[in-house]
């Protein structure tokens, strides 16, 4: 606990940074980030998607400058698939060299806690080799590679401090689990053998039977459409896990037309669909596709 700060605190330099190790974003990258943000219907998710996009482009720019010897493949990453950008507040499935990365974005970590979506820890299709924290200074259009955590290190930490889930489908991790030296991240990416980091591939989370989810969604449609609540407030984690690991479900959630309270400058890009009809048509079991990620 700290006292109310002195009334005469005069430290001017409380939120200033020298700009030496920041990555500058170009107007082009900013434009693309804005465009990407428009692919998700919910206004609140739009800002997060925008920041995640800035983080992704900044991260790629950083690799461009420091390590053009590393191959980057972003074609399968969650940010570029609107249904998943809509559901997960992170950039999953980014391939750098032999490793799979997940980028977590924020404007600040000054309270020394990193918040990660539950999906990137519990659901194998979304679990990376390396979690990377990327700080986005949106006002200045700069990005900082803040820190990273290998999956093997996460597992080790969890053995002594098991993670507690929050009510909104996230885990909070102590920032000191992360290595804040981005040069060491490059060392691992360039030189470490992939076998050094094991990713879970077979864990099967508890899932809700599809008919149950369908029923729940029918009841919740008004709330889903008004976007006043996040999914985590309306559904259980088992429901959420089911949606995330079933591409058809994920797409269906994405298609739910969202009403906007404030006047939008763009026409709604998502045509209204007759949801109850759609649900009826889908009463037979859905085909199993390969995981979307």
């Amino acid at each position, binding site marked *: 606990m*700290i006292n109310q700060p002195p009334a005469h605190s005069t430290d*001017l330099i409380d939120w*200033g940074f*020298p700009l030496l190790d920041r990555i500058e974003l170009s107007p082009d990258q900013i434009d693309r980030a804005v465009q990407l*943000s428009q692919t998700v219907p919910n206004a609140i998710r739009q800002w997060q998607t925008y920041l995640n996009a800035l983080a992704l482009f900044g991260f790629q720019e950083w690799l461009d*400058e420091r390590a053009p*010897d590393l191959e980057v493949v972003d074609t399968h990453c969650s940010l570029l698939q609107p249904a998943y950008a809509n559901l997960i507040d992170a950039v999953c499935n980014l391939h750098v060299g032999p490793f799979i990365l997940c980028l977590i974005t924020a404007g600040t970590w000054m309270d020394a806690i990193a918040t990660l979506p539950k999906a990137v820890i519990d659901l194998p299709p979304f679990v990376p080799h390396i979690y990377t924290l990327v700080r986005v200074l949106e006002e200045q259009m700069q990005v900082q590679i803040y820190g990273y955590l290998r999956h093997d290190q996460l597992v080790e930490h969890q053995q002594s401090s098991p993670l507690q889930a929050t009510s909104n489908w996230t885990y909070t991790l102590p920032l000191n689990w992360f290595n804040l030296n981005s040069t060491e991240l490059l*060392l691992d990416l360039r030189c470490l053998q992939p*076998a050094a980091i094991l990713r879970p591939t077979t864990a099967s989370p508890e899932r809700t039977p599809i008919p149950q989810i369908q029923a729940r969604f029918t009841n919740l449609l008004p709330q889903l459409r008004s976007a006043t609540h996040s999914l985590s407030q309306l559904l259980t984690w088992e429901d959420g896990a089911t949606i995330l690991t079933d591409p058809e479900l994920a797409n269906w959630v994405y298609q739910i037309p969202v009403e906007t309270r*404030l006047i939008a400058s763009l026409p709604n890009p998502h045509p209204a669909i007759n949801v109850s009809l759609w649900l009826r048509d889908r009463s037979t079991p859905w085909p199993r596709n390969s995981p979307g990620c």
Partner: protein
Amino acid sequence: MGSASRYWRLVRIDAAGQRKAEEIAIAKAFFHQQFADLVSQSAAPDAQIQKELIRLLRDESVSGDSNNLHTTQPAARTGTRSTADNTLENRELAAYCLRCFISHEIEQACVRLESTFGIQHGFTRYDVFPLVLNDDGQARSANNSSQYRSLASEILQTFDPDRAGLSTWVARQVRQHRELHQFLLEHGVYLASDWAILNDTSPDQLRRILSDFHALTRVEIEQDCHLLQGYHEVYRRDRLQQRQAGILKGKEECRTPTPDQLTRIAQSLNQQAHLNLSNERIMSRLQAIATQLRHYRIYVRGGAFPIKSLDDDPTQAIAGEMQAPEPAADFEEQNEFLAFYREQFRNCLDQAIEQVTSDRVTYLERKRQQGQPFLNALHLFHCQGRSMAEIAAEIGLQAQFQVSRLIKLKEFRADIRQRLLNLLGDRILDKARDYADPSRLRDLDQRVEAALDEQVSTVFHAAAAAAAVAKHHPLNSLFARRLCLHLDTRRGAS
């Protein structure tokens, strides 16, 4: 907190740009008259003084027109005409005292900026003074708006002694000053605005942070979180829309919320959290939250600003090379495998140097047409032992930080080292054993770093080391030597 003389000595700059502290006689007399008992105290009670001065300044018992000597209502003290005269003069004098105090605070802010960023970023307090220390020292009526508007007068207009001390208010206004912000940006320093800070912080983070301030109740904290959420809903949406519409491009300062935005925030709060707040209340609460976030940041830093850029000054790290030669025998023991494969190690090193240098030149050329300056700077540093300041002058940059940013020495060396490790793994070392365990890999990285820093000549006197720094001798490590060879090859080839 300080002596009372701050209330009658005005700090300003004259026409020649010189800093002066003038004693304003009438302000001094006025202060002695109003605060006779406080003058002798070594630490003047600022809050009390400022409250009283503000009260005198804003005394409404006389109308604003300086020519109108009639009172519209009985004055608080007496109703005589001479008192009306005194009250008007009192306002002017109270303003004078406050302006003096403000000038000291503004000067302090400039001094702090200089001490934190000045050397690396190439500016002094004198560069900053003209932007903010612009009170001309003339006596004037506090209310006449057609006259010269200094930063001090802006500060006086908006200051509310019930909300914060004047020092805090001055610091806030200086920090938000647009021209200063611009100046700092041009010199590579970014001070985030309140509205950016609010944008960057999530309600969950705010809740955790505010819970550390024990003077706040749970209800207040929840209210603040709702408020932040409402702010995000409106402000972020607008900002994104403006970017989309092309109204905002690139770096754009987060401006103060408009009345329309405040109204919409109020609406959202009403709908979402059943809170009824006026626009003014919303604005002042948001500013208070931003201030609390700033305080928290200072608190977690232990009060000191971490001057990361100076700590990481590569020139210091590399100068250290020259003072610590490793005796040849120890080195051999530590790095026996490297010693055994010495020639191959050197070949891999040369290759890594060539790869990374080429990649950097390509990138810098493509981004900012700075390929050649980069090479020149590298050469000047490693092969001629020049300082950052000298290099800046030679390659046409204005400040050290620009050179640091151009060559990023630590990163350059790290990248060469890592690519060297890759090559060694392919050719010499047992990848399966040494590269499959993160801690072994780090250990290897450190040993390679030691090898690169090895002094090529083991006979290296302390005197020579000192002389080399002064007299522009090349750096003497293995790394520097091979790099200089490569740079010479490039020059010869081009």
